[in-house]
């Protein structure tokens, strides 16, 4: 079909006008009727990011929230994934923040640094600390920065060691429930010698615990731990090198499954190795331990506190919890849902499914729950050194122990540089 030039010009003009009008109208819609926090038919529209795709408890909580607030809010759920930090920050930067999100309470420095998190303290302290008093003593400390609470916990999270007791019996090895680092490495040496297997399995994303926990434990007293957590001790300190070298030794001696290539192991690969008796010890996370043990099929499992250097058997830890972006469109609605998510009504079902929780008033009939939560009151309350800056958090969380294993000197130098920069920024 041939158009005359006049017709072509008119068509083009119409296309340009329609493009312009649709762009303008979609911008207006975005301002007055955004996907997050807008109203639809009288109900406030909210976007929540509270559950991981494979978290059965989280999915159950989504259903409970949807049902409870069906008359009041029009809720959309987005799944949490390993890029949760970037997802939240992207939504904040775009002016379309999620209304409530999962996050680790000890990691709130990532948001507070850029004034991106809502201060929850006034809401927690309202009505004579009504909401605050529902939490287990000390559990709100991890989400507290400079006296303000930016995240609330629902599940204490800390590392533990699962042990195939049958393999240990085969190797003629015993290990106490709260092993020191030496007891742990001696047991692994005997297992490797007697059974010929790589004794320890730990996925690459969690391998940093081997360093991080000992960076707390190596100090002789609480005041030193506090100094360390505030970034006042240099990474050139011999105690720090001792910690890093202890972990490097495990990899150099091929104690970590499968030996060569241990730094790339996924969670499934490690779990399969535990299931197939290729490892005797498996570093795991407490609130998923019940599922891991059931999936592995290993019947005789001993649960150990994560091994520690020094004399203190405390464990580094955090909590799974929730935060609200500072520019959330309807903070009161977000708070209402958050209160419900941290209520005994919701968290009781987590306990029933074998997961420990951070609130009082829940009942646990299964005695194993006590085992998975046995160190919940034994956590270091001081912040990790990684909290002094987002760059330190990224380095310690994502680059250790690999960087130290391949280049020890440069790694300590990099970390020291980051520590000094963080201290300079804070001044």
């Amino acid at each position: 079909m041939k158009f005359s030039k006049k017709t072509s010009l008119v068509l083009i003009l119409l296309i340009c006008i329609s493009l312009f009008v649709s762009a303008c109208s979609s911008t207006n819609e975005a301002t007055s009727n955004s996907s997050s926090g807008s109203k639809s038919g009288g109900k406030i529209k909210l976007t929540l990011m509270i559950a991981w795709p494979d978290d059965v408890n989280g999915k159950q909580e989504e259903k409970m929230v949807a049902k409870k607030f069906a008359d009041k809010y029009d809720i959309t759920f987005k799944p949490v994934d390993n890029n949760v930090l970037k997802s939240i920050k992207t939504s904040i930067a775009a002016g379309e923040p999620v209304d409530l999100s999962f996050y680790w309470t000890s990691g709130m420095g990532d948001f507070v640094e850029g004034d991106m998190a809502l201060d929850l303290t006034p809401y927690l302290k309202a009505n004579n600390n009504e909401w605050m008093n529902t939490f287990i003593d000390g559990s709100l400390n991890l989400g507290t920065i400079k006296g303000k609470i930016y995240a609330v916990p629902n599940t204490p999270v800390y590392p533990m060691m699962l042990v195939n007791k049958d393999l240990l019996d085969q190797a003629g090895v015993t290990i106490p429930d709260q092993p020191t680092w030496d007891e742990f490495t001696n047991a692994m040496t005997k297992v490797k010698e007697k059974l010929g297997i790589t004794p320890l399995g730990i996925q690459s994303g969690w391998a940093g615990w081997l360093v991080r926990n000992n960076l707390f434990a190596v100090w002789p007293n609480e005041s030193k731990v506090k100094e360390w957590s505030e970034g006042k001790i240099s990474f050139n300190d011999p105690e720090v090198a001792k910690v890093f070298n202890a972990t490097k030794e495990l990899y150099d001696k091929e104690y970590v499954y499968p030996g060569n290539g241990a730094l790339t192991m996924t969670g499934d690969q490690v779990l399969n190795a535990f299931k197939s008796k290729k490892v005797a010890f498996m570093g795991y996370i407490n609130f998923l331990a019940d599922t891991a043990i059931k999936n592995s099929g290993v019947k005789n499992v001993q649960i150990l506190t994560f091994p520690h250097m020094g004399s203190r058997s405390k464990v580094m830890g955090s909590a799974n919890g929730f935060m609200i972006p500072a520019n959330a469109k309807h903070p009161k609605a977000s708070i209402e849902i958050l209160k419900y998510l941290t209520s005994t009504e919701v968290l009781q079902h987590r306990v029933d499914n074998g997961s420990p929780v951070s609130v009082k008033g829940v009942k646990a009939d299964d005695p194993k729950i006590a085992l998975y939560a046995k160190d919940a009151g034994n956590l270091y309350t001081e912040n990790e050194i990684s909290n002094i800056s987002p760059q330190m958090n990224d380095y310690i969380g994502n680059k250790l122990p690999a960087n130290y294993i391949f280049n020890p000197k440069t790694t300590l130098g990099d970390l020291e540089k980051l520590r000094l920069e963080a201290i300079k920024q804070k001044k």
Partner: protein
Amino acid sequence: MTSQSKGQTINIKHQSEYPVISTSKGRSINFKQRLLGIALLIPAAIFITFTMFIPIFWNIVLSFADWSPLSGLHLVGLDNYSKLFQDSVTLKGFGYSIFIAVISSMIAILTGLLLALMVYKMSNKEGAVFRLIFFTPSMMPFIIIGLIFSFILSPDGLVNQFFRLIGLGSLEQAWLAKPGLVLWTVAVVSGWKGAGSVMMLLYTAIITIPASMFEAARLEGANYFRQIQMIILPLIKPTIGMVSMLVIIGSFKAYDIVFTMTKGGPGDYSKIVPLQMLDVAFSFNEFGYAAAIGVLFTILVAIIIFISQKFTKGDVYEY
């Protein structure tokens, strides 16, 4: 100049590339054609302006500033750029990006060329089957390729198991867990994926060469290798140049495959510039610094493309 017939005068005003005949409205057809052309381009121009030029301009402005979504923009001059040259992690990232881009491009171009030359010699049906086989990886998303190869290259994966099976256990490696080796591994996988597209583009160029040239060469006793040397390569050199440019540009954008296979690990030994930019922006809240990294990376890519064009420039033959 006038010509005259009975009762009629036609004025021919002047000669130009497009003969201009004056109309009753006094406007030239040339002007109208230009106006029409511009009008037809306006929708595309608007689209490109809003999706490319404005974001690029904003990024350049942001690279000279400190910006937070909640506190706004503050200009900081060249601070972000001077910070970049002192940031060893980012500078290493530039090195890793260049390494992966150069190696994967070389693999893609050389392999693609080899495949195109081999496929050209096959019969139509056979050639079609093999073209499909070799082109299939290019059709798959980088994420899928990355996931598949992270399994194949894991310590207990297909590659190491194969070496074990054929008695070459000494060749087993932690392909994605050793500094240095991880970059080669990612580059090879990325190059393998791109070879199919290169093959198709070069094959298309080869089939446009007149068959008479090959016949003449055969009559003079030239074998296929000689024909490649004397006929095919010189005649498809402009296409090789264009393909090289496209492959190099694509290989510098290798975010998906690196993220899926290594996430920048082990440690930060494969943390290429796009990964570092994302961390700087969304983990460290330094959007201005991330923009500066992006600007410098763009300049670097432009320089490398310019250099590669110089190398692949050659005579253009008409046939």
